[in-house]
């Protein structure tokens, strides 16, 4: 789990960047709850890509796990009971996209616990991100 202080700071960072059209539909508490739920991601001892974490926002998320974390760490960490809403996830994605537009950038990197890494980017730069992180995506077994 990520420290609560980091979640609060992330919320403060996101709120002013959420487009006004969405801001009226999402309360600050919704953003906090969504971030708390997402904060469980650093529990995972594997690298994976989520193409649709932010509904209706064309951004993908690559989670790059910390090599030194073990499956035991995953078992021991507790899950949250927080409720995460779809509008809150959309608002988070929209805020990130807004910041990319304002800064003329395409890749956001965030290390919530200083070890594992979250990388957010539009689909058109997926190949570059995968190459930069040495990641190969395999087809999943259905």
């Amino acid at each position: 789990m990520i420290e609560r202080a980091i979640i609060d700071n992330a919320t403060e960072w996101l709120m002013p960047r959420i487009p006004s059209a969405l801001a009226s539909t999402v309360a600050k508490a919704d953003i906090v709850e969504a971030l708390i739920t997402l904060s469980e991601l650093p529990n995972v001892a594997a690298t994976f890509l989520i193409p649709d974490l932010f509904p209706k926002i064309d951004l993908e998320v690559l989670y790059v796990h910390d090599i030194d974390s073990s499956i035991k760490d995953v078992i021991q960490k507790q899950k949250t009971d927080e409720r995460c809403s779809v509008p809150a996830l959309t608002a988070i994605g929209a805020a990130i996209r807004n910041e990319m537009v304002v800064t003329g950038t395409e890749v956001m990197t965030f290390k919530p616990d200083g070890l594992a890494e979250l990388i957010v980017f539009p689909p058109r730069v997926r190949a570059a991100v995968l190459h930069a992180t040495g990641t190969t995506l395999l087809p999943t077994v259905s």
Partner: protein
Amino acid sequence: MSIKPTFQTAQQFLADRIQLGAMIKRVGVAINTKFGELGNNQRVSERLHAIIDSVFDTVQSAIDDKLSAISDESEQIAVQFIYAQSRKIAENDQLAMLMRGKSSSMVSHAAANQRHVPVAVQFALLETCGEHVSTMRTLLTKTNLHPNVVGTLATHPSSEVRLDVAKHIGMRMKIAENLTNEKQNAYNAIVDAYEADYADYLIPVCKRADQIQQMFDETPMVPSKVRLFVDNPYTPDRVLLDIISSTVTKLMPGGSDVIEDARKVIENRIVHRKIPNDVVLGF
């Protein structure tokens, strides 16, 4: 505590990562959440929990599936080595993999090409795949290479491997460094196998007068090589005097400058030692 996200262009991101050097090869999967199809808050959290709970096994299954599609065992083992660090394959398992595929240079190269090669695997590679030149050269690019492995490779039949030994040592050793016995033995081994091509790497980091003399005796008197001896503060006076009196060096472009600098070093030493300058100095 404030940890902020970083925003970059894709080009900057790629350039920064490449600059960090060799990266750990990772394998992963893409997982769709389909959150957009959900309308109930509770199910979003449940769906995310389900992803978190299952993604490790999903990735492992995908890897197993890929490996099973490879019919050639050597290729299978090589692929396992490529992702060994990110999958945390234990040292003993890596040794077993290497033994199964030791005759294959593809396997040995993949084992040596890991960002961090376990020490036991380094020695196993040396012992069982020493004749694989490409593998040994790859091993010599590793920063965690054990000095005893380096020392053994100093006498490798391949001149390319021996040169890489000199490079490995020269790029990592500092002249002021107090060497462990193992590192000293590795350095001694490559000096004993000295060839002039090693000069750029070995001479700047040598502190022993006898070894500097030994290398000087086997180095052509071209200014670029001679300069290495002049710039090393541990070069014995005898070597500097030979440089000063070298007609070969003097006649080559840049030779006069090097000789002049050698003269200055000698004169400086005379002043500091307060010895009359008509006394022939030597060790």
